[in-house]
């Protein structure tokens, strides 16, 4: 097990260096001069341009710039935003809880609905329910979520007025962030109605972000269940007269969960991609929106830093999934 872990970590470190080179060189290739952008429609004199480029270190050889950057990253310095002049890492940590909260809600939504739906479809295989569930899942899987979000806003918020349109909580509530998770903070604050408000703000983004993972998990659960149900030990258990609930709930489900856990882990990348669109649509102050804004503002430092942090996060999650997989399924451990 230890060798397995060290091996994985070594590969990860190598990948991380690769990621940093890619992130760094991409950003240098971006067209449009970030220094010139500082002055907007107004024009900057060449002297000032040179001075600012120098101050930002853009005039040094590219390799030096890279090594300098990498050295900074190793010390936890991911650079300073050109636009806001704040450290990238600070901004990331300020915004990340919002994305994390939304993602966790979405994945919970997907798991809580997706697994039962998949199990049910597998048990009732070929029935009307199976077809309906799988049909719906395929629609969810094919969903352009940016449109789905617009549609929900149009229907649920604008027409029915059931949910607020955007943001994380009503502005009537103001309390200092403790955990950064609005659901928890609103409870801690003890202000009446704050929690309810936070929940109502979360509903639509959760549904939108959770749709594709929900579909994937439902489909995955169904096929994993089908596979397990057809295996000998389940058949034996059934023939021995164990209650179907026990057979499915205990024996089949546990084994079927192995591929499902992997799938859930793989959804992290999907979630972050989805967050880019979901947060843009719902004005959700998180990482996704920050990235889109930074790309359009040509904020070199932010895109570069954020790419790195996100890649590192995904790699860590993948590692965790691998390890978890190893725990659930002893067969691959050696």
């Amino acid at each position, binding site marked *: 097990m230890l060798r397995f872990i060290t091996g994985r970590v070594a590969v990860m470190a190598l990948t991380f260096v690769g990621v940093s080179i890619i992130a760094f060189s991409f950003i240098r290739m971006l067209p449009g001069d970030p220094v010139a952008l500082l002055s907007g429609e*107004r024009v900057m004199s060449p002297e000032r341009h040179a001075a600012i480029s120098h101050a930002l270190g853009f005039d040094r050889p590219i390799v030096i710039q890279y090594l300098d950057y990498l050295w900074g990253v190793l010390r936890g310095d991911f650079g300073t935003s050109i636009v806001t002049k704040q450290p990238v890492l600070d901004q990331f940590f300020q915004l990340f809880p919002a994305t994390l909260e939304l993602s966790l809600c979405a994945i919970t939504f997907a798991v809580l609905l997706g697994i039962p739906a998949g199990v049910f479809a597998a048990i009732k295989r070929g029935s009307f329910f199976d077809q309906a569930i799988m049909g719906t899942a395929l629609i969810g899987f094919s969903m352009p979520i940016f449109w789905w979000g617009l549609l929900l806003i149009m229907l649920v918020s604008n027409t029915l007025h*059931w949910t607020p349109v955007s943001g994380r909580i009503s502005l009537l509530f103001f309390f*200092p962030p403790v955990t950064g998770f609005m659901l928890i903070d609103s409870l801690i604050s003890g202000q009446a109605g704050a929690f309810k408000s936070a929940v109502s703000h979360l509903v639509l983004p959760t549904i939108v972000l959770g749709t594709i993972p929900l579909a994937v998990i439902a489909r995955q659960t169904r096929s994993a269940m089908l596979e397990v149900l057809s295996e000998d030990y389940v058949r034996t258990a059934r023939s021995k007269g164990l209650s179907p609930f026990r057979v499915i709930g205990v024996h089949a489900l546990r084994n079927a969960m192995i591929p499902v856990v992997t799938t859930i882990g793989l959804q992290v990348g999907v979630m972050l991609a989805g967050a880019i669109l979901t947060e843009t649509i719902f004005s959700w102050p998180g990482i996704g929106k920050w990235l889109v804004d930074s790309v359009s503002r040509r904020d070199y430092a932010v895109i570069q830093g954020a790419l790195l942090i996100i890649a590192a996060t995904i790699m860590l999650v993948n590692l965790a999934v691998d390890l978890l997989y190893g725990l659930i399924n002893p067969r691959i451990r050696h």
Partner: protein
Amino acid sequence: MNTYKKLLAATALAMLTGGLMAGGAAAKTFVYCSEASPEGFDPGLYTGGNTFDAAAHTVYNRLLEFKPGTTEPEAGLAESWTISDDGLQYTFKLRPGVKFQTTEWFTPTRELNADDVVFSFERQWKTDNPWHSYVTGTSWEYFAGMGFPELLQSIEKVDDMTVKFTLKRKEAPFLANVAMPFISILSKEYADKLQADGKMNEMNQKPVGTGPFTFVAYQQDAVIRYKANPDYWNGKQKIDDLVFAITTEASVRYQKLKAGECHLMPYPNPSDVAAMKADPELKVMEQEGLNVAYLAYNTLVPPFDKVEVRKALNMAINKKAIVDGVFQGLATPAKNPIPPTMWSYNDAVEDDKYDPDAAKKMLEDAGVKDLSMKIWAMPVARPYMVNARRAAELMQSDLAKIGVKAEIVSYEWAEYLDKSKAKDRDGAAILGWTGDNGDPDNFLDTLLGCDAVGGNNRAQWCNKEFDELVTKAKETTDIAERTKLYEQAQVVFKKEAPWATLDHSISLVPMRKGVEGFHQSPLGDFAFDGVDITE
């Protein structure tokens, strides 16, 4: 299911009853749905209007302030001022008894004095000032953009309450310039404290000023909170709390306004305005914006070096269609390079008539056949042009009618600004300008002067006659004289047609019915000094 509304109602009720019990002193919270996050809270560092709204107009004051709703400077932190006869020396007498805000992180021990003023200018001006580069990549863009470093000779503290500015040359718009948000007055005492604590960065995150509102907290990309400054020299505000709810999507801002989640919003979608006006709970303030959008031909590249060709194209463009299609009618077609609200606007100038047939003939007479050209469309929405691509599409189909093939090109914004400056640019570029200080010089010389070729002069147009008129006007202090010169310059402009002037947008500010005391700024600022809610 309507829990949210109920919640709002319940809270409102609670606030109301609580307020009644406390003798009518309910906390009044004013919510502004702003359109973008501020870049920071030190106005000197940035050029974005939303940053000025969030920092300069709330937390800070300037020596002079624009009279609400106008571009006319009036007394601010300076109570009075005198100008020397040669027009080179400006002496400002400071207002006594102005207190800086008391916050959780700073308690001032003294009132505003000349040191604060000198500091506020010198940190942007003098490269050896420790605050000149206190954050990475500091560039004092606006200060440089307005030409201050070349203009200022010296700034002296005459006594505790008097500051004297000496200029290198005469500058007619100087008083308006010191009323601009980038030159807000900071507290030297606070700066010294931050410097001593090694936390200079916080100047940009925890601002302290003399303004009507005290900064409370900023939650990135979400909410900025302020409370009324109890010690404000011009009296405490009628509202108790001010909240900026950052909402980037115009349609979302509208929804929030409708739901009563905010009281006022900037930049509505033109397509929503009709519904806003019909809504009994809302009202919409409107004003012609101090801006212009144009299509700049490259006058250095044939066949656009020919006046007839430019004129012909101008006649082929249906401005009315742009105003309708892009602004849903909420703009006025432009004929001059400066907006009608600006002094010296020459209304006698006659616009090129929309006449495709005549345009076609004119083009043929000029010997131009099978012309194909590029139209550059900006990738972003600006107040003067909310959807350049749509405008380009409209022009494209207009030009097709006179047999000109137009291809629409676009680049990312920074690249667009940069590439469009090139003297050998292929194609005509859509761009525009919003006035900084209400002076015609800020349009005519900045955008069309010979010095600006290869820069802001996107038409690359250098016309001797025009340039002489504009330069002369800049050095004249007499307004009547200047007006005459600028009027002439506009005639020359129209005759030469370096641009197709497209539109002046109307700026609209939708708000709840109960909002009172808001002044729409011609400069596009959103300042909430003096605002009240009576709902």
